[in-house]
């Protein structure tokens, strides 16, 4: 027996050497990753090797397990084992659980666990965000733990330990120039992540460099651990048996370390740890990423099922010997137990072995940090940043560059946050225990993921509530105690419960005592999580879209039957292929978008015009959505497409697929296919609706020798089925009368139950009312099938035979239903045609009204010697409510009128016509403007009240003899008068009110004298309320200024100038309101 060597002296390695070797190792990692990427470009993908996949899964073994397992074994005994036994157990399920997740993720381009859950549950943005937040919360500190391990082990290697048992945390990095090694390492890892984990935005794309580097690291850490294990077991001791024997001899009181059911490791805790590890290995974001997102071949799962557990076994083979050996050599001192793997070679004079172990630990940390940072950055981008970007509705041509940079920043950010955690709370209880705490966090995703895979009813409300409750309990029962033990919270809450309520003690919630912290937390968090998940899944309703998505997940291995394929959809106002490409380019960059579409189109049939057929467009939509999902996550991709389509006014609608729903046997196929084909031709012919229906029935009757075929449509008012078309020998009952809707008749049953009803032999029928008629007319068999539009029946197609029996086979029924579907199409076509015709009719009527209204305005204003006058009326719509007029009164004076009826409808136009008629008719009897306004007010009082309209008017009268203008106003915009001599503008106004409000008003009348060169401008509010893009009105001032500047123009020129300025101002050719302008200029 070789005696265990006593501690000679603690050998150390110079810090320079350690740093050099570490950076040399990082360089090697970069080279490995770079080589993997290079191989990908040359077409030899290293990921195709199943060993690489299995090894990359070992990212599960972080430095927490690399160093911590031995520490755990030395202090708590077998407690380290469940962390590895759990994954071995769950590996049994991989062939149906993991493979299902991989298959789904490939089909849906899923990028992360958050994306997986969000995709399954109604592509819920909220769920994605919640999962991401929890992952950030639970995992980022874990990154800190890795950085801490690197920093501490570096210290141990290069700083002599004065006395054994010194608290390692007390050592700061004493490296040359006070370099903070943890920071340098963090930066290197961030650069690695940015280079190899965020090469492109497409997260569903594989990251060869990253994965191969992780696999490489797994090899290194295994070699390092086996080396130190063999060294301790066979170098320091004489094999396993020797270690155990000596340990039991020296420390008989510590043999509990090798037992279960002890105070340290009760069976409940053992069980809990197994469950936590089973869940963590599947649902920790980094595991999900490596296992699912980076998987390129489902067959790799098969080999990983035994290779990964075997790896874990080898990693653990020497844990006990090292731990027990460390205890023996250190005289039972456990203070350095976490670093026995390092201190044992060091203290026995094997610094180079220690250096290898250090590199192994570095690998364990680096692998975890690299993968976690990339995964979390992806989740942050897709589930926190993208929804905000989409909400803000930023209009940019191309987001892709910005997005990829956000992702790179995210990686850097996550690692730096981890680094600051390490700096700030490096030695706290909370951080040291974050390993299991994060396992417990990942466990909360378990019910929603597994339920989502196997249970269609599970819905997003259930998942959101379950996960949220789970995390709340997790926070309360695990994190709060951890915070208290770290000294950040007062211990009051642990001792007395929240608000001093005993039942709310975080470690004895609702009075549950006697369990360790993890069992207690797992029990309560899972109880709430699962109960909410199951209850809401039972009671909450799923949307149709969520159901479809649930089916896609649960039935991912079920081959779609032709009937399911037959459920076709089409998109109305569908975007073109190029428009889809433009949309994708915006988010993923032009090149990837072009490449994706080229790949897609290479598998599609393209019609003669170079486009995709109608029913291919929904597939293209799904493809676009999936491609986007690979880059930005499922929920944002859905929002992007929905917004895009709804902005275009596009909608998904059901399509009746002529051939998709019929399965036809070989024997009958030709005849039946020809019937369907002919029916389709009839429907698409340009015949009128009635003729189409008649032809279909004719075809049906002829081909299948029916004696009578009838189509009935529902008359909604009387709720009866009325015959629309009938072919064959009519009888008194069948075909002639309308049918009431009730279940007493077969036709009523077919309509009400919305399903085909068949009687193959009328000798056995169970409806007495029908029986009577059927017997009387000698019907031997019959069938009714509903004509369905958007899921609801609108009529019935019926066929009757008087000779044959049993002719309605399942095949025939399928064909019969198909014909009914075609009748539905014909009906819909006809409805659309009618709608179009009605629309056209209306348009034509409006055109006529417009022409009539035009004639009501003065077409040519008179050419007079003392005044020049021009007018313009531009209705905003086809007809308008503006009116102006210029009427000559027995050569002595002229009446000038401008009026505005509210609205732009036919009603406004009619009131305007009425106004004109009134004025022209009463011209002779009413001489003064005020009188005319008074009379109009009285006249309109009743009419306007009824129609909810109102009229404003300005009435002027000009006498050229004395150049006197008299005027009155009924609430109209005040005309502008340019006084040439005084070079100023005055507005004309009098007291008055709009028509139709009050009966007893007096309209004031005023007068003013005009001079040569004066210009009178009448207008309606259309021009002054014309709005610019910045929501500024054109306004009276601007109008007045124009008048002032252009006083040398003729009235017509002035009007043209105003219109041009108005259009420039609004930036639009058309105005929103009617515009009327009248200009009168006094000549010399």
């Amino acid at each position: 027996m070789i005696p265990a060597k006593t501690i000679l002296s603690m050998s150390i390695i110079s810090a320079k050497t350690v740093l050099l070797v570490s950076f040399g190792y990082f360089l090697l990692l970069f080279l490995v990753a770079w080589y993997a990427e290079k191989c990908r470009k040359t077409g030899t993908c290293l990921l195709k090797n199943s060993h690489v996949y299995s090894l990359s899964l070992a990212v599960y073994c972080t430095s927490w397990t690399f160093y911590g397992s031995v520490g755990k074994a030395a202090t708590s005994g077998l407690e380290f084992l469940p962390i590895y036994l759990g994954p071995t157990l769950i590996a049994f399920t991989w062939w149906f659980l993991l493979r299902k997740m991989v298959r789904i993720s490939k089909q849906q381009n899923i990028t992360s666990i958050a994306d997986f859950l969000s995709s399954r549950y109604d592509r819920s943005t909220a769920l994605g965000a919640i999962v991401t937040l929890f992952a950030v919360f639970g995992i980022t500190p874990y990154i800190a733990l890795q950085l801490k391990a690197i920093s501490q082990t570096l210290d141990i290697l290069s700083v002599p330990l004065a006395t054994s048992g010194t608290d390692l945390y007390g050592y700061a990095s004493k490296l040359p120039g006070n370099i903070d090694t943890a920071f340098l390492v963090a930066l290197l890892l961030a650069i690695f992540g940015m280079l190899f984990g965020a090469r492109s935005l497409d997260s569903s794309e594989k990251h060869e460099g990253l994965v191969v580097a992780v696999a490489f690291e797994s090899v290194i850490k295994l070699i390092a651990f086996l080396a130190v294990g063999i060294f301790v077991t066979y170098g320091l001791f004489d094999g396993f048996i020797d270690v155990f024997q000596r340990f039991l001899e020296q420390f008989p009181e510590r043999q509990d370390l090798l037992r279960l059911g002890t105070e340290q490791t009760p069976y409940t805790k053992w069980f809990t740890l197994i469950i936590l590890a089973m869940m963590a290995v599947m649902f920790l974001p980094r595991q999900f990423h490596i296992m699912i997102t980076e998987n390129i071949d489902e067959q790799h799962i098969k080999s990983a099922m035994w290779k990964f557990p075997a790896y874990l076994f080898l990693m653990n083979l020497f844990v006990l010997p090292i731990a027990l050996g460390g205890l023996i050599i250190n005289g039972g001192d456990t203070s350095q137990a976490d670093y026995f793997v390092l201190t044992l070679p060091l203290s026995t004079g094997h610094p180079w072995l220690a250096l290898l172990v250090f590199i192994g630990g570095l690998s364990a940390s680096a692998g975890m940090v690299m993968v976690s940072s990339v995964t979390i950055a992806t989740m942050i981008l897709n589930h926190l940043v993208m929804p905000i970007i989409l909400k803000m509705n930023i209009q940019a041509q191309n987001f892709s560059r910005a997005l990829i940079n956000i992702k790179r920043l995210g990686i850097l950010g996550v690692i730096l946050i981890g680094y600051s955690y390490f700096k700030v709370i490096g030695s706290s209880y909370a951080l040291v225990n974050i390993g299991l705490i994060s396992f417990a966090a990942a466990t909360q995703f378990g019910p929603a993921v597994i339920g989502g895979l196997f249970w269609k009813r599970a819905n997003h409300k259930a998942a959101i509530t379950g996960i949220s409750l789970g995390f709340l309990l997790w926070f309360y029962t695990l994190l709060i105690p951890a915070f208290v033990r770290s000294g950040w919270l007062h211990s009051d809450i642990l001792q007395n419960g929240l608000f001093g309520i005993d039942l709310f003690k975080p470690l004895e919630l609702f009075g549950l005592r006697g369990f360790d912290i993890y069992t207690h937390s797992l029990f309560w968090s899972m109880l709430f999580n699962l109960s909410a998940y199951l209850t809401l899944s039972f009671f909450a309703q799923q949307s149709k879209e969520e159901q479809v998505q649930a089916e896609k997940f649960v039935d991912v291995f079920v081959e779609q039957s032709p009937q399911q394929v037959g459920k076709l959809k089409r998109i109305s106002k569908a975007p073109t292929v190029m428009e889809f490409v433009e949309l994708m380019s915006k988010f993923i960059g032009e090149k990837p978008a072009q490449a994706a579409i080229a790949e897609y189109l290479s598998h599609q049939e393209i019609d003669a015009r170079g486009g995709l057929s109608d029913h291919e467009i929904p597939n293209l939509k799904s493809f676009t959505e999936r491609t986007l999902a690979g880059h930005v996550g499922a929920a944002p991709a859905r929002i992007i497409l929905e917004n895009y389509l709804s902005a275009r006014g596009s909608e998904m609608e059901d399509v009746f697929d002529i051939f998709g729903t019929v399965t036809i046997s070989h024997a009958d196929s030709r005849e039946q296919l020809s019937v369907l084909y002919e029916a389709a031709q009839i429907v698409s012919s340009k015949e009128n609706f009635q003729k189409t229906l008649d032809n279909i029935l004719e075809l049906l009757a002829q081909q299948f020798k029916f004696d009578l075929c009838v189509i009935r449509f529902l008359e909604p008012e009387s709720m009866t089925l009325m015959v629309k078309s009938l072919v064959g020998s009519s009888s008194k009952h069948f075909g002639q009368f309308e049918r009431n809707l009730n279940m007493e008749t077969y036709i009523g049953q077919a309509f009400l139950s919305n399903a085909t009803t068949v009687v193959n032999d009328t000798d056995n029928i169970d409806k007495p009312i029908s029986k009577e008629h059927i017997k009387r007319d000698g019907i031997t068999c019959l069938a009714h099938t509903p004509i369905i539009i958007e899921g609801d029946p609108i009529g019935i197609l019926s066929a009757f035979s008087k000779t044959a029996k049993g002719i309605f086979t399942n095949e025939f029924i399928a064909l019969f239903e198909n014909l009914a579907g075609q009748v539905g199409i014909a009906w819909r076509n006809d409805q659309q045609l009618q709608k179009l015709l009605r629309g056209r009719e209306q348009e034509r009527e409006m055109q006529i009204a417009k022409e009539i209204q035009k004639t009501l305005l003065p077409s040519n204003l008179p050419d007079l010697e003392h005044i020049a006058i021009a007018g313009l009326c531009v209705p905003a719509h086809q007809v308008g409510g503006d009116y102006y007029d210029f009427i000559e009164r027995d050569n002595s004076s002229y009446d000038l009128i401008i009026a505005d009826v509210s609205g732009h409808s036919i009603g406004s136009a009619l009131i305007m016509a009425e106004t004109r008629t009134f004025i022209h008719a009463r011209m002779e009897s009413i001489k003064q403007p005020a009188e005319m306004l008074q009379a109009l007010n009285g006249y309109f009082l009743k009419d306007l009240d009824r129609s909810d309209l109102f009229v404003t008017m300005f009435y002027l009268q000009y006498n050229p003899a004395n150049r006197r203008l008299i005027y009155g106003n009924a609430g109209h915009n005040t005309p502008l008068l340019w006084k040439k001599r005084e070079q100023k503008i005055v507005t004309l106004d009098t007291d008055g009110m709009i028509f139709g409000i009050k009966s007893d008003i007096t309209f004031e009348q005023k007068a003013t004298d005009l001079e040569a060169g004066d210009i009178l401008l009448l207008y309606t509010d259309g021009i002054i309320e014309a709005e610019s893009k910045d929501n500024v009105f054109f306004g009276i001032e601007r109008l007045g200024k124009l008048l002032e500047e252009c006083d040398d123009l003729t009235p017509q020129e002035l009007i043209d100038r105003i219109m041009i300025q108005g259009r420039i101002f609004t930036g639009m050719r058309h105005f929103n309101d009617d515009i009327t302008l009248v200009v009168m200029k006094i000549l010399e």
Partner: protein
Amino acid sequence: MKESQESSIREAWGLCLILGLIMINFPFVHIFNTELLIFGIPELVLYFFIGWPASIVVIWLFVRYSGTDVQTDSKEVEDKSNP
């Protein structure tokens, strides 16, 4: 045929998982939780470190078995469809 084969494989895996869970938990492990040393190694440690690789071997055998089986199955189907 293939589908039922798939589902029986799935059931077998599920059974393995349940058996495994039972075998590494209370009360089953309690049988081995003694002070007894076998070849100088505590019985419980020996149980885990023999049972663990044994279960890995089981998975390995199972993967091989089910893998080849599914392949021959699909071959048979092909043969039948082309008499």
